[in-house]
């Protein structure tokens, strides 16, 4: 029975279910000291003085360090040239929450007390928190030497005005894709132990080799003396790809104090210091015919990158503009973007990383086209879709060639599962009954760019390369360990890789162990991000398994005195087709593989090891059709999702249970962005005002619906699994489905658009625009 495609329960679970998994804060070496950062109270200020004298006198304090102590070290890697971020604020703080000093004490309670005793003197400057404010003529500049807060601009080549004028109609939207906090439940933490043999850094990270490489360079030590371990990681969602300063500073603290030093972020610190997501503003315009056929699309993206350009953050609007046309065959597409610095937390990847933004913009404008033409939103999509026989499809950007898809079928399946006509009837019935909630129905047909990626793609974000590594080692007893360069944090990659390897090698699932996250034992890897694990490390493992099996079969054939071509392998044994009883176990073959006297002449001892750095010729392009039904309380504006249908096309599904779990999780974050979450700043002071989980509204179980999952399958032609990945799909496809549904419900009130999050008051005001202070 093939494990690929089967619902296989996870290998990861027993340790996580019994509290025996090791997260960074669970590692407790003797004499471990604790670091805590002093952070800026102001959004924008010159640092006049940092008085650490009282802190130094407090019990248990081993030291307090500032930027002065790091002056021999470079800025953090990967930012914009001349605009890189120092590990500790140097001379100027650029956002409220920016670390500017660090205390180390013998226990974490003492460290907290010492942080409270550090006194900082500031000269407060004006702060800007939005793109508009940052670009105003009199705005305070974050980097005066740069001359503008727009740090990077890529203009449009042609504004398509003439094309649009030649269409029946034009329509445009100004959209805010609001700033979100990533909120993995495990905040940033690291533990550095710099001993005479070198540095070991435990870090909650998605790309441990990448971190190791950059860290060794920064610390000026050989990579062989720098070991990074990402143990169990409590969620990442993109924020843990980042080079957070603590990963660079805490090793130095260990070196200077001559003991292990641990840093664990509090949630409030995480809200201010972990990179945020989204925060793009779009001006999108289309020219279209009265049939709903779109002839031209132009999109200008303004990315608020926060106080410093993060290497991933700077790439987000690139991905957004690449995916601006979505699933649609639009003859003329033009995009432009700019990255604007503001006095806010730096922005980087957050589940979807640039693609949710693109999908949101194009799906909102398509709904507007439907409204303006009177054509049903399902029909408008069908009329504009790229057809299944038009793949590979070259988009407006030469880097983006969609590989495969069947958008019409996905949308039909979504409509069927949703029971669309039933909901339209209910909507009509409820409309005139004031005791019933308003009903809204919204769709989102989407495509995303994943499986990062072809050679050069991740290099653009500062990574070493874009392949992914796998190494299979068969032990003398026929069990196997697979070392993968991917670095999972909830995806179940150990399980999925074991399923693939088990199918190929015929070694049973329970006798395969997958290791990841440790640079001392795993070959150079790239990491887990961009929905790449299954397409990249899954494919790598499949091919590596096949290659290893060739040599295993040679040994088996030799032992059985049979022909290699006649051998089959399953259930930990090799048998000869047509000759029952003639069998040799994997354990015998494996044992023999280390014994030169028993090997065929062409093989040497240790031959049952295979490594592969798998490259992909292209990205992969998962797609799907989501449908959402909302009920809106007419009296309060409170919105409830009552139906959420998710039809995904991720190509080959390795494990349907895990794939569905990924979609649920992504959709939960998408609904949360649509209805609840927003990272907000006070415009006058630049202070963050949603810096904890009381005020930043991450939903819990009663706030979210059940999900109806469906599937369409078009294989990915670019990897041996035919798999596209699914990790970010839910977060990409769902926000526009929800917003389209709410705007559909509110269309009776003349509302064409409402920005996320669609909090009750906002929806109520849209229904009652003149109700300020008025009664009835």
């Amino acid at each position, binding site marked *: 029975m093939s494990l690929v495609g089967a619902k296989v329960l996870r290998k990861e679970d027993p340790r996580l279910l019994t509290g025996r998994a090791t997260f960074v804060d669970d590692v407790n070496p003797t004499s471990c000291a604790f670091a805590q950062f002093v952070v800026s109270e102001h959004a924008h200020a010159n640092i006049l003085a940092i008085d650490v004298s009282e802190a130094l006198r407090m019990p248990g304090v081993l030291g307090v360090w500032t930027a002065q102590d790091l002056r021999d070290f470079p800025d953090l890697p990967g930012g914009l040239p001349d605009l890189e971020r120092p590990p500790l604020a140097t001379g100027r703080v650029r956002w409220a929450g920016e670390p500017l000093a660090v205390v180390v004490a013998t226990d974490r309670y003492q460290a907290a007390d010492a942080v409270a005793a550090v006194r900082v003197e500031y000269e407060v400057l004006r702060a800007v928190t939005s793109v508009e404010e940052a670009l105003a003529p009199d705005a305070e500049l974050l980097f005066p030497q740069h001359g503008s807060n727009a740090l990077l601009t890529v203009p449009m080549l042609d504004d398509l005005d003439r094309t649009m004028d030649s269409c029946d109609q034009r329509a445009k939207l100004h959209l805010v894709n609001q700033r979100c906090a990533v909120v993995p439940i495990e905040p940033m933490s690291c533990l550095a132990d710099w001993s005479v043999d070198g540095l070991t850094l435990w870090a909650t990270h998605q790309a441990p080799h990448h971190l190791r490489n950059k860290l060794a360079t920064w610390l000026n030590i050989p990579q062989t003396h720098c070991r990074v371990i990402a143990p169990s990681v409590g969620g990442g969602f993109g924020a843990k790809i980042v080079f957070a300063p603590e990963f660079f500073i805490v090793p130095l603290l260990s070196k200077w104090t001559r003991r292990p030093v641990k840093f664990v972020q509090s949630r409030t610190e995480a809200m201010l210091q972990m990179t945020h997501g989204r925060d793009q503003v779009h001006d999108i315009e289309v020219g279209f015919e009265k049939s709903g056929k779109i002839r031209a699309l132009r999109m200008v993206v303004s990315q608020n990158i926060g106080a410093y350009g993060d290497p991933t953050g700077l790439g987000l609007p690139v991905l957004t503009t690449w995916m601006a046309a979505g699933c649609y065959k639009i003859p003329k597409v033009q995009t432009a973007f700019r990255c604007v610095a503001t006095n806010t937390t730096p922005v980087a990847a957050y589940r979807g990383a640039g693609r949710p933004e693109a999908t949101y913009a194009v799906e909102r404008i398509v709904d507007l086209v439907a409204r303006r033409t009177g054509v049903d939103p399902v029909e408008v999509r069908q009329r504009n879709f790229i057809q299944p026989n038009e793949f590979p499809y070259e988009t407006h950007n030469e880097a983006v060639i969609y590989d495969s898809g069947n958008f019409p079928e996905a949308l039909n399946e979504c409509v069927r599962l949703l029971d669309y006509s039933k909901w339209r009837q209910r909507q009509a019935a409820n409309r005139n009954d004031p005791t019933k909630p308003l009903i809204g129905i919204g769709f989102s047909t989407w495509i995303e760019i994943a499986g990062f990626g072809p050679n050069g793609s991740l290099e653009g974000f500062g990574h070493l390369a874009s392949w992914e590594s796998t190494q299979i080692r068969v032990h003398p007893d026929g069990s196997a360990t697979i070392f993968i360069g991917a670095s999972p944090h909830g995806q179940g990659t150990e399980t999925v890789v074991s399923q693939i390897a088990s199918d190929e090698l015929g070694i049973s699932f329970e006798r395969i162990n997958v290791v990841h996250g440790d640079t001392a034992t795993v070959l150079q890897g790239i990491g887990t991000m961009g929905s790449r694990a299954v397409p990249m490390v899954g494919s790598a493992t499949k091919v590596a398994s096949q290659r290893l099996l060739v040599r295993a079969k040679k040994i088996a054939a030799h032992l059985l005195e049979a022909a290699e071509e006649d051998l089959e392998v399953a259930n930990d044994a090799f048998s000869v087709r047509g000759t029952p009883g003639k069998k040799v176990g994997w354990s015998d073959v494996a044992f023999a593989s280390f014994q030169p006297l028993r090997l065929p002449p062409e093989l040497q001892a240790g031959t049952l090891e295979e490594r592969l750095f798998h490259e992909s010729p292209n990205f992969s392009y998962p797609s799907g059709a989501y449908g959402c039904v909302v009920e809106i309380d007419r009296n309060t504006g409170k919105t409830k999702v009552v139906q959420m249908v998710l039809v995904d096309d991720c190509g080959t599904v390795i494990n349907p249970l895990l794939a569905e779990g990924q979609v649920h999780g992504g959709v939960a974050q998408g609904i949360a962005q649509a209805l609840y979450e927003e990272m907000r700043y006070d415009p006058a002071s630049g202070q963050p*005002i949603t810096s904890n989980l009381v005020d930043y509204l991450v939903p819990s179980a009663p706030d979210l619906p059940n999900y109806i999952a469906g599937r369409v399958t078009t294989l990915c032609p670019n990897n041996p699994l035919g798999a596209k990945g699914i990790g970010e799909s839910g977060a990409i496809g769902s926000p526009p489905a929800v917003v389209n549904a709410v705007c559909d419900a509110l269309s009776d009130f003349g509302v064409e658009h409402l920005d996320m999050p669609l909090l009750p008051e906002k929806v109520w005001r849209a229904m009652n625009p003149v109700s300020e202070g008025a*009664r009835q």
Partner: protein
Amino acid sequence: MIPAPFRHIRARSISEALDALVSHGENAKLLAGGHSLIPLMKLRLATPSVLVDIGDITEQSGVRREGDSLVIGALTRHVVVERSPIVLGCAPLLAHTASLVGDPQVRNRGTIGGSVAHGDSASDLPVSLLALDAEFISVSPRGLRKLSAAEFFVGFWQTALAPDEILTEIRVPIREVGWSYQKFTTRSQDWATVSVAVAGQQVTLGAMAEIPLRAKAVESSLLAGASHRDAAQHADTETNPSSDLRASADYRRHLSRVLTLAALDEAASRVSDAAAHSGKN
């Protein structure tokens, strides 16, 4: 995340607790369930140097009926108030309100006295206790004091309790009346944006001012024979809701009217259900 240092004193009786409060003065705070105080201390918004722990004083915990009064010890946990058959029988409004405080873990630890003494007008129990005409019994070195709910809640995060005074009991007159508690939140676990309680003729509002309020204009409108819908329009008369992250003052005013109507309707339906049942008997 980490509170500032303090000394923990376990009081085995109310009088021991009073002695500790007196000797430590302004530096001391009472600790009951800790679910109002400890969160503040973890953010270092409160930094008492002494905590007087009354959490184990079992005499102050529990529910009983005394004649026509429901008596609840101040240290009774929300989960007990929520599930007690005595409370369900004598003051179902209170049981229902307690079931909406925080989340299940909070209800397992937080106490009615602790919640009420905190003085947060977005808190659930004060709104219902005001509607129920509850009395608050406290002790101090000056003796026993009995305060009405209106006297008890005096201002923003402020009650009438002196720093050396301990709330020991809450007494609720037992009345068989229609009741309702309406709480509007964005997420399920949020504090009330606005809340409304109805018990018989009394209508009260939460988060519409610095303290829980009687909606007097609604009450007199009802007494004058107005319909629920008309009476509810007066819900925000003489209130002072704030505009904050959760909601604007205007929206709160609107919600107060919506919730008041829903509460009046629900309370009335409970009365007619009760009448229907007693009719059957």
